[in-house]
């Protein structure tokens, strides 16, 4: 076990998977000579050469589709989206081709591809560069979606994603790339579809992933000081949802707050809430609350941006509300 940043953990996962399987390659803007816009692919070009670390032109639809074609032909591409904002240009390829090719071909074709990159807001990048895009991918059958909150999970989920025979969307976070944590050496696989209880508690369940998991943990600390023990569930995989783990926690706490960065309308939080209603209605002592980003395009100005994003205080307030302690 070594302590490293999430950036390093992702880098390690890429390196290990590329070393393990010659069919694995990395493609995207600036992944090679520049070592990645956020340095996730640092050193990979040097180690694996230009055949397997491919700098692309700026043409998201084109290179996403190229990755899909390569996957159909037996390779295991990892396509980096410099940020997920730009993947809207590739949405047709991801939704209409990657997600459906197996189905449309009656099961003949397989599309084992990973699309990965940072998702959501970083710091003051304004409306076109700050989107939390979960909903666009989670909505679509045929895709799996993962979104890690810790370096260890990042490594383990990326390795699992590369080995998965389905298209997997991996939503990372620029603001977490520098986060440090212990990461198991070598073969460390986090299964796709399995949530993780990051803090045990009995009074209220806080559900988050990626960045918001950390806000939830902060909120849990605050709540603890007021004698409220929150259980914090890290979804880790957004599609398919780990309904079992979610419901188990709800059965215990009877109160839930779901925290997401993105826009509220038809966000992942709405789905999680409804899944809880469908599976654990009788266990709920209050409606599932959601804490989300504001329903506005992201503003540039620092304080506005801060106000548009979910944070600890909102979670604490929501937790108290579902506990009727306001």
């Amino acid at each position, binding site marked *: 076990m070594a302590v490293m940043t999430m950036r390093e953990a992702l880098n390690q996962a890429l390196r290990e998977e590329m070393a393990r399987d010659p069919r694995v390659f990395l493609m995207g803007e600036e992944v090679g000579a520049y070592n990645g816009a956020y340095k996730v692919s640092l050193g990979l070009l040097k180690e694996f050469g230009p055949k397997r670390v491919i700098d692309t032109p700026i043409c998201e639809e084109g*290179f996403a589709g190229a990755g899909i074609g390569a996957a*159909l032909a037996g390779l295991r591409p990892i396509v980096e989206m410099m940020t997920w904002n730009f993947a809207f240009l590739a949405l047709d390829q991801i939704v209409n081709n990657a997600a459906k090719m*197996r189905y449309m071909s009656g099961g003949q074709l397989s599309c084992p591809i990973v699309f990965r990159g940072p998702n959501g807001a970083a710091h003051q990048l304004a409306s076109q560069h700050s989107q939390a895009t979960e909903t666009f991918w989670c909505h679509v059958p045929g895709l799996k979606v993962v979104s890690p909150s810790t370096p260890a999970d990042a490594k383990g989920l990326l390795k699992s994603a590369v080995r998965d025979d389905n298209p997997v969307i991996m939503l990372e976070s620029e603001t977490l790339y520098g986060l440090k944590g212990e990461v198991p050496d070598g073969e460390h696989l986090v299964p796709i579809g399995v949530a993780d209880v990051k803090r045990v508690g009995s009074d209220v369940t806080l559900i988050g992933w990626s960045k918001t998991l950390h806000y939830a943990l902060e909120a849990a600390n605050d709540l603890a000081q007021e004698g409220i023990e929150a259980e914090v569930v890290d979804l880790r995989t957004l599609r398919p949802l780990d309904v079992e783990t979610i419901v188990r926690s709800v059965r215990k706490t009877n109160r839930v707050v779901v925290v997401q960065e993105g826009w509220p309308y038809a966000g992942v939080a709405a789905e999680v809430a409804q899944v809880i209603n469908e599976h654990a209605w009788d266990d709920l002592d209050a409606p599932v609350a959601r804490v989300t980003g504001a329903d506005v395009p992201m503003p540039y100005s620092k304080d506005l941006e801060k106000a548009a994003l979910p944070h600890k205080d909102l979670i604490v307030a929501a937790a108290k509300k579902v506990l009727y302690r306001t």
Partner: protein
Amino acid sequence: VERLDPKLLESLLHQMLLIRRFEEKAAEMYAAGRIGGFCHLYIGQEAIAVGAVPLLRPDDYVIAPYREHGHALARGMSADVIMAELYGKIDGCSRGKGGSMHLFDRELNFMGGHGIVGGQLPVAVGLGFASRYQDRDSVTLAFLGDGAVPQGAFHESLNLAALWKLPIVFMIENNQYAMGTPLAKTNAVTDLYKQAAAYGMEGVVVDGMDVLAVRAVTEKAIASARKGNPVLIEARTYRYRGHSMSDPTSGTYRTREELEEHKKRDPIVLFRERLMKDGIIDEAKLKALDEQVKETVQRAVDFAEQSPYPPIESMYEDVYADEGAR
């Protein structure tokens, strides 16, 4: 003609006839309500698929838009599984899930049948990329309609193919209309092969009604592509039927006269007459071929009729590699 093996010439005629009769039968069965959805017939364009596809090796790839019955037949897919697919039956090549627009055959490297105009082109880039990556010299033959040229995907794909020197032949089937819109209303430059120059790629135009002419240019193009020099071919042709089964053959966007004028250069008639004139086939042979083709098509209908519809549970299959994932 003289330089070619009479057996080959006969086989080309045979294939064109098969496509023609298959499509006529599909139209009949569509009218009879046995086939549903969109059904785009290839009648009039047979010389292109038959001129090009049989040149490929088994390890080469074919990818096409939704008007692909002809390409599938030319690639050697049986009329049975294609007809069964049009019927939506379990023995269809895509288990009844794809229908007319989504024919696939993994064994024959027939990579679909794609419904989004231009969407198959980035995928073709990936197929070509994979061949190169795997140190195979397989070629990808990617078909598209004239209507796909204004799409961004066309530009991105040709640039990537040229930039990366991929073994791809792009074949534009210019039938002069995208649905009801004539070329001059959609493309600033209507000589579509000239697009190639923007990528430093070779571009050639050919009479798409002349199967041997198509064969000749495609043969050269495939040889070039196999060496890493992609080629763009524009084959000029005409579709005799409406855009899809629900579209009238003429009257709205094109006149009956225009259609009749083009029918005078029917690719099958032209080729048949040439072969007769050169003594490669005679009336008797022709009749035999015709009988044979009719039989094949009738057998396909019988096959499709007798095949069961897919069980309802199969709806949930083929979404993910690991079916339980949802």
